[in-house]
């Protein structure tokens, strides 16, 4: 009965209630979507770290991580691999050989980690093979008379392997894509020119186009002008087991793009047999074991089990390998909660105001209800229910709107291309796909409910303090 009365009371002053409900709707919608956005960004970073960079558990020789000393390696005789594979929960295991060296082309050089892998086995753990930029080659599939190396997009830029050029084909392609003639005419001035790197290209293009034109067509122009020299080569220099300097020419097998500048700049992948041949490190020995497990929640248990079996090795799970990521995933729910609480606190002011108004203008009515025998508990809960109805109605519409928007944007994602450079430098993609778990919605519902209750306390107390005799007499 009280439920019904309260619900009807909410709609007695329709406009006023709608304003409050609308404010809750907008607040919750914006909050839910903002959290889904943040969450999508972090989830993408997490997936990228696990699926492309570190996986779940890594094992190295004792103190190897201090300075990547190539002399600290493991061999099959240690019996590590079969022992790990026998642990329940371990899904896949791969080994890597790693040396430090320098990659150079005719014009530039950069320090890199050269990693010997078994390409087929790596596919079981890492999705790197799916991130090869179309047109730059493939994941060690095409054979060549040279040894093959897989490099990252940022290293390719650094070494001037990727560059930008505008010529007649690029211009005609742009025209086909309905880029206005005035823009292509402006670009024609650079026809035939090659830009050794992206920055120079961008600054040149920026200098002739207006900011409006840039916003609309910049991305397109960049994509079309991007050029990769087929069969590019580079030289890798490193020390072999006898500490002799080895320099060898490699053909670029392909260029991967995982939206993480640091990783892309420093990690060069070769076939393990090639690295072994050049360094003299035995093909069957390795510096690092990488493990993928079935259940993320088990990573600590499995890490401990491996530690117990091999106390002489360094065993690290993803949380220890990327403490910032672990911290983020551990605290992220508190941050979301805090964010929603701030929004709800701001909403509470509006609800309190409205409820107070609703109570004060009904002084006579409430007095009458008390006078004819409605007890204080019921009056109190009626007011409280009204307030909860206001907030929950707004909350639910807000959540539905938020959820709908998340579904709409999750497919194509939201691309902040202008921040790509900065975000990729710290490992985040600028193309964000909002997502959020159902448990977050449950938390939000609880929070909204609590807000409704909390903001009704003061108005409801006011209602209780009314003296029935006095209240009936008021105009």
């Amino acid at each position, binding site marked *: 009965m009280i439920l019904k009365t309260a619900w009807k009371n909410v709609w007695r002053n329709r406009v006023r209630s709608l304003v409050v409900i609308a404010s809750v709707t907008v607040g919750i919608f914006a*909050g839910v979507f903002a959290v889904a956005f943040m969450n999508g960004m972090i989830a993408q970073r997490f997936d990228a770290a696990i699926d492309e960079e570190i996986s779940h558990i890594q094992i190295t020789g004792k103190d190897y991580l201090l300075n990547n000393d190539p002399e600290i390696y493991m061999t099959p005789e240690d019996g590590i691999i079969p022992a790990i594979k026998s642990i329940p929960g371990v899904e896949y295991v791969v080994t890597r050989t790693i040396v430090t060296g320098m990659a150079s082309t005719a014009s530039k050089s950069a320090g890199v980690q050269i990693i010997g892998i078994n390409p087929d086995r790596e596919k079981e753990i890492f999705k790197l093979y799916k991130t090869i930029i179309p047109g730059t080659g493939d994941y060690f599939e095409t054979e060549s008379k040279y040894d093959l190396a897989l490099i990252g997009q940022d290293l390719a830029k650094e070494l001037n392997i990727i560059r930008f050029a505008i010529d007649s084909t690029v211009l005609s392609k742009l025209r086909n894509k309905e880029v206005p003639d005035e823009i292509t005419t402006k670009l024609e001035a650079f026809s035939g020119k090659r830009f050794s790197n992206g920055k120079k290209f961008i600054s040149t293009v920026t200098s002739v186009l207006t900011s409006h034109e840039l916003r609309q067509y910049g991305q397109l122009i960049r994509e079309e002008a991007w050029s990769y020299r087929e069969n590019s080569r580079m030289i890798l220099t490193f*020390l072999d087991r006898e500490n002799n300097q080895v320099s060898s020419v490699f053909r670029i097998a392909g260029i991967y793009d995982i939206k993480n500048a640091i990783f892309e700049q420093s990690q060069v992948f070769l076939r393990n047999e090639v690295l072994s041949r050049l360094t003299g490190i035995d093909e069957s020995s390795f510096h690092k074991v990488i493990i993928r497990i079935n259940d993320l929640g088990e990573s600590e248990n499995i890490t401990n089990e491996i530690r117990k079996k091999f106390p002489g090795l360094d065993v690290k799970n993803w949380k220890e390998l990327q403490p910032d990521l672990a911290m983020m995933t551990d605290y992220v729910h508190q941050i979301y909660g805090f964010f929603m609480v701030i929004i709800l606190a*701001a909403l509470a002011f509006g609800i309190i*105001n409205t409820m107070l108004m609703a109570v004060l203008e009904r002084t006579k009515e409430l007095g009458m209800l008390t006078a004819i025998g409605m007890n204080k508990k019921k009056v109190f809960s009626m007011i409280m229910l009204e307030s909860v109805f206001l907030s929950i109605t707004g909350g639910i519409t807000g959540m539905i709107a938020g959820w709908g928007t998340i579904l709409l944007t999750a497919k194509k994602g939201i691309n902040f291309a202008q921040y790509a450079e900065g975000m990729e430098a710290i490992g985040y993609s600028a193309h964000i796909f909002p997502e959020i778990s159902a448990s977050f919605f449950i938390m939000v519902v609880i929070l909204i409910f609590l807000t409704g209750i909390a903001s009704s306390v003061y108005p409801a107390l006011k209602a209780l303090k009314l003296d029935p005799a006095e209240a009936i007499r008021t105009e």
Partner: protein
Amino acid sequence: MKNYKIAWRNLWRNKRRTLITGASVFFAIFFALIMRSLQLGTYDHMFRNAIESYTGYLQIQHEDFWDNKVVDNVFAYSPELDRVVKGMKNCTGTVPRFESFALASSGTLTKGVMVMGIDPEKEALLSDTRSKLVKYHLDNTAIEALRNSELPENIKKNLDLFKGNSYSNGSSLAVDFNIEDKDTSAILPVFREYSFFNNGYIKLGEPGALIGDKLAAYLKAGIGDTIVLLGQGYHGTTAAGKYRINGIVKIPTPDLDNKIVYLPYDICQELFYAPGMLTSLAISIKDNDENTINEMLVEIGQKLEAPLKVLGWREMNKLIINQMDADSKSGMIMIFILYLVIAFGIFGTVLMMTAERRREFGVLVAIGMQKRKLATVVTMEMILMGLLGIFSGIIAALPVIFYGYKHPIRFYGEMAKMYEDYGMEAIMPFLLPDMYVIWQSVVVAIIVIIALIYPLRKIRSMEVVNSLKA
């Protein structure tokens, strides 16, 4: 009676409503100011770090060097150029640098490093390499000795956490170990006694190197050891040389600490076969006001000849600016949502007020008050309410901001280590009141003005007879 007086009294006729609405504005302003101040303050600090310890505000380079950092893009360091720059009134000196990439080896260990040729004395004007020399080093013997020393227990328990760390000054050590200011004079001497690090320096004309603390740990190299540098020299030559490590430096940016090798710049020129050449000439300035810097930028630009180019700090720190911009935008979105919600709250109040006072408005007009005057009074009421919230919010936030400016938020112990692993300094200072305070007030003012449209239209279209019946 004056309009503002009527408005002020009207406000206090319904005290509760005024206070609650005022409080919602207060809450938004207070929260937005604290958040913005912290965010902007942290950026400011990061900026200063990046600029003052590395790039400086202005640099002269070969025009291709910034985009393509190879040894071939160097320029001749002429006394004439030096004189021209030094002749400018805001310039306090020039800092020559020769920067390149090389492989550094010590024993069997090799790593790609950044070789930075500097003038060991002139560098004091910018990154002040000498102040970054390691003074305390917590190696195993130091830790053991400190464990048995008279240090308080709460400090000893952090010893293991920071094993192997180095510090170039007492204050950064105090942060990691959570030593309070009043205790530093008692505790630091103990650290000095057991973990003092005997460091040397480099000098122009004498081969010798300073290397980053993390790089030293990586290469397992200490003072007196030799490192071999191998790289690409001027015009395709091979650059190779070996140098004695004279000192270890601790750079606050971990990424740089991991790869920096300082050489005297003339030795560096020899190494890369580029005698008399520099990759950049950083300019140290007195007044770092943005306008002054921009003026200098233009002025130097006019004086330089073809292959030379002057770069400002914005151009040299694009990446940080880009990151900060993205982060700043996300903070602004949060504040935007907050204000959106507050706007609805204000609109709700206005709505209620208008409905409640319909009859009152009717009476006032009936007894001869001009509608225009009524509208003015209502407008003043709303503005006063907004101002009440804005000023109380600002007044409440200011002490917090000033306190936060004097005593930045610091993370101690494990949290500090985490931050360092992440490549950041474990410190978050506030930014003193600036334009951002005004912006918050402007936003609230705009909200109030928009909310005003409703009652003003109601007043204008009001039919006195109907209102009186309400």
